[in-house]
Every structure is written in structure tokens, then in C-alpha cells.
């Protein structure tokens, strides 16, 4: 009894701390959603209203009828889907080799891919754009897909590698005794065990290519090929009043698919990121 009374204030403080931290994380997002439902007049009025006085979907209607935003979203969906398939597919095979085989060449490649994990986009910007120009893949979705597949591959390699290392080798051996080839054992026994890691990698890759800005804004030039990030920036007028309602509606439209993926894969993401991010 005594113990309980003594613990209570601490608990209350802990709840308060948790709520404060959550507010810090969630309120900026809630503010986007609230603003997207307000009229232009209400948005710039001072003092600002906290909840919309008149809830309106006009911003969303305008977004998908009067701008090319729907097109940008389709373009991003295409680029992100193909990049995800390439990264998870190629990453899965290579990561298995890195996890199981100990040949010199494989080891060297494994180390190199760790370095690749640290290489930031901005350092590759100028040379990669030059290469894409030479290959005539500028202003082309496939150029962007090549870039994303490469840049996101190292993360997949390291996450999946540590996942495969956690799968018991005995299972593979049993399958091979039963007549599988090594590759067959990999597909039938190891891959199913690594599904959570594959899901997390896929979500991470999709998210990153859906949201990427730097290469999308420099490689693509014609408006009908733009992906979301540079497209969203185009909604800002060069001069004059910024239509915040329209922009916040666009932001919500951009986040929603990611939010769905995040909710679906939350457990796998937390486990895999937590384990994988700092130690391979």
C-alpha cells in the first residue's frame, strides 16, 4: 500500500512526459490535416482558428481537378513500385550470399556495400546526372528508377543480411538432404523465414523513393513526368500569396499511402530498423 502511494506521482509524471512527447510528434501532422480542411480566407486570418469554422473539401477537389497532382502521384507510384521490386529482389539474393558464403570476393563486395550505405545522394548528384545524360535517361522515369534502386540497395543488403544470419542453417541443410538444391533451399526455407525483414525493407524502399526530392527535381524536367516531391514544390507560386490550404491537402494526399503502409508494417519496421540500423 505504502509502495503504491509512493510510486504514484512518478507514474503521473511519466504519463505527462509521454503525452508531451506524443504531442510534439503528432501535433504538427494534425495541423496539416486541419489546415487542409479550411478555406483560404480562414487560413490567413489572425488570430488563427484552431478547428476549422467551415469544414471544406474544396482544397482536395481543386488539387485533383485543377492541378497535375494526380499525375505526379501516379508517376511516383510507378517509380516507387518498380524500385521497390528491384531493391527487394536483387537485395534478397545478394544479402543471402553475404550472410552465408565466405569467399574472398564476396567479403570484399560486402564491405564495399557497407561503404555504399554511407554514401549520401548529394555527393553523387553531379556525376550521376552526367551519367544519366550520357545514357539519355534524363527526364525519364527509368533513369530515376535506376538511381533509386542503386542508392537504396545498400540499406536492403544490410538489413536482409542480418535477417538471413538469424535463420538457422540446419533448416537449409535438412531441405538439402531432402533433395533441394542450395538455391531451392534458399527459396523454400530461408525466404519464408525472412518475410518480416522483406516487408520492412520493401516499406522502407517504397517510402524513400515515393518521397525523394533531390534527384527527382534535377533529373526530371517535363511537368507530366514529375514525381510528387518536386510536383508539390511547384504548387508554391513564384510570387504572390501561397495557397496553404491547397498545399496542405497535397501533403495529406502524399502522406496517406505511407501512413497505410506504416500501420500495416509497423511491427516489422520497428524490429528491423531497431536491430538493423546500427549493426548491419
Amino acid at each position, binding site marked *: 500500500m505504502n509502495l503504491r502511494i509512493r510510486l504514484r506521482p512518478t507514474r503521473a509524471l511519466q504519463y505527462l512526459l509521454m503525452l508531451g512527447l506524443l504531442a510534439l510528434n503528432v501535433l504538427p501532422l494534425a495541423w496539416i490535416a486541419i489546415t487542409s480542411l479550411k478555406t483560404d480566407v480562414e487560413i490567413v486570418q489572425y488570430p488563427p482558428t484552431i478547428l476549422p469554422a467551415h469544414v471544406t473539401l474544396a482544397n482536395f477537389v481543386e488539387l485533383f481537378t485543377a492541378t497535375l497532382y494526380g499525375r505526379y502521384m501516379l508517376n511516383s507510384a510507378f517509380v516507387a513500385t518498380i524500385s521497390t521490386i528491384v531493391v527487394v529482389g536483387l537485395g534478397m539474393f545478394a544479402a543471402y550470399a553475404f550472410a552465408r558464403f565466405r569467399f574472398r570476393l564476396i567479403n570484399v563486395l560486402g564491405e564495399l556495400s557497407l561503404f*555504399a550505405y554511407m554514401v549520401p545522394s*548529394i*555527393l553523387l548528384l553531379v556525376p550521376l546526372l552526367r*551519367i544519366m545524360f550520357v545514357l539519355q535517361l534524363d527526364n525519364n522515369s527509368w533513369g530515376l528508377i535506376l538511381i533509386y534502386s542503386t542508392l537504396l540497395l545498400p540499406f536492403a543488403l544490410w538489413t536482409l543480411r542480418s535477417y538471413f544470419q538469424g535463420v538457422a542453417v540446419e533448416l537449409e541443410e535438412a531441405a538439402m538432404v531432402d533433395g533441394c538444391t542450395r538455391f531451392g533451399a534458399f527459396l523454400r526455407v530461408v525466404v519464408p523465414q525472412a518475410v518480416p525483414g522483406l516487408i520492412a525493407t520493401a516499406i522502407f524502399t517504397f517510402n524513400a523513393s515515393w518521397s525523394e526530392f533531390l534527384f527527382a527535381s534535377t533529373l526530371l524536367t517535363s511537368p507530366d513526368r514529375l514525381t510528387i516531391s518536386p510536383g508539390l514544390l511547384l504548387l508554391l507560386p513564384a510570387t504572390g500569396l501561397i495557397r496553404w490550404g491547397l498545399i496542405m491537402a497535397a501533403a495529406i494526399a502524399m502522406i496517406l499511402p505511407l501512413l497505410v503502409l506504416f500501420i500495416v508494417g509497423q511491427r516489422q519496421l*520497428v*524490429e528491423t530498423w531497431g536491430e538493423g540500423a546500427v549493426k548491419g
Partner: protein
Amino acid sequence: MSSLLGRAAPQRLRRKGISDRQLALLLVAPAGLLLMAFEFYPFFVAGYDSLFVTDQITNARTWAGLDNFRAILTSPETHDAFGRSLIFVIGCLLIQAPLGLITAMALNVGLRGQTLARGLSLLPYMVPAIVTALSFRFSLNGLYGVVDYLLVSLRIVHNPIFFLDDTHIALYSVIAISSWRHAPFFTIVLLARLQTLPRDQLEAARIDGATPLRAFRHITLPWLMPVLLVAMLLRTIWCGVEFDTPYLTTYGGPLNSTTVVPLAIYNLYADQHEFGQASALALCVGALLLVGSILYLRSYRRTEASETGF
């Protein structure tokens, strides 16, 4: 740990198909080729480009030797950009690491709704850079932004602060925005580590009458330390080369006050069309990163070694 199936796999297990070595090479080849072509080869392109000056009108290239490097390393713009990047990196780490640590601790004490709270606390990490940047540009606006409204009406400040338009403040605002986005990285990593904290030690400390603070200092913190250090090193590197948040919130302005090194590279390329100088600066940053990566690799090997008992 090294398995039966490694180099020493018994011959009879490989009844059909190709050898392990061939299989390994086949599995790695596509990914390896992609990385070679678009991740490593570009550094050679950059190295080559950095030795030439490209004429802005004719696009003709002339040999420049190390002139680009000399121009970059002696220009006051570069020095200023490195100074800002230093502030940016230190600021980001000073906010993100403690914030992530506090969040991870708060989400690990078994409160009600903890699972939901864990999910929500990771949300910012998922939000695209452009959305983060634009939404903060809106709410930090000095004219009708909600943050200034709250600060003024709660009488914390007298006059609205122009967070992103004041040259003395903009860099710190960008640091705060970037930290909002990236603190969850520490939360995720530290939460995972906390799951494996040896409970019996904490229990023993409690029975011995240690205060929670002492238990934290002598048991929890040392347990988190190796992971925390690696995470800090990674974030040091990533903050040092972060382009999206500073560019999308302020475009490097006002008056270049938020032009950190990655933006300086971008400006040399996109605004001044100095491909050679942009490549030279990128290579200099790359060299700095290489040192950081080697440190990371070492600590990585140490963690891996201690985990697997090699």
C-alpha cells in the same frame, strides 16, 4: 558459427547444380553491377570532372589541374558553409540524441497505451522531407503562423519571431525542424536495445536500494552506450550531408544564412554551373566521410564480434 554449408560443405549435399562459389557470384552479380555502375563509378566521374573547367556557353572542357580544389578550399563561401554545417551537426546531435533517449525511456516503462505511443512516436520519421518543410514553413510563419500566435498569446515573447526569415535564427530553426524529423531514429534504435536490457541487474540494484537515477546511470546508460555511440556517429555523417530539410525550408537563405555544405555543392552545380568545383567540393566531403565510415566500420565490427562471440 561458421556453418556446415560454408566452404566445407560435404560433397554429397551438393548433388546437383552449381558449386557454392558459382552460386554466390550469381546471387551477388546483379546487385554488384548496379552498385559499381551508379554508386562507385560516379566517384571516378567526379574525380575526372574535378580536374576540368567547363565553359558555361560552349560546354567545352579545359584542363584545370587542381585549380578547382584551390578555388573551393580558399573561397570564403566554402569556409562559411563548413562553419554552418558544424553548427548544424552539433545542434542536431545535441537535440536528437537526448530527445530520442528520453522518448525511448518513456516508452519503455510499461505505461498504458505504450504500443500505440511507440507507433506514433515514430511517425515523423515516415513523413516526407517536403511535407515536413512546407508544414513548418506554414506554422513558423511570422505573420499568421500558429507558433508565433501561441508564443505571443501565452506572453512568452512580445513580438512575433521570424523563425525562417531572420538571418540570426534561421539556421537554428532548420536544426529544430531537422531534429523533429530525425530524433525517432534514436528512439527506434535505443528502444530495440532496451528490450534486451538484463532485468535481473536492475532488480538487484532496486533491492540494494539504488535510486532510479543511479540505476539509470550505472546500468541502463552503460548498456545503451555502444549502440548510442554508433547511432551518433551515423547521424553525425547524415546530418553533415543533409540536403532536403535546409533546402526545402529556406533554400539556403535568408542571405545564405542556412547554406550548409550540401547546399553549397548544389548551388555550385545548379546556380553557378561550376561542375568542376561542385565535384571538387563533393570529393572533399567524401574524403571526410571516408574517415567517419572507417570509424563506423570499426565499431560495427566490434559490436558484431561481441554479439557472435568471435
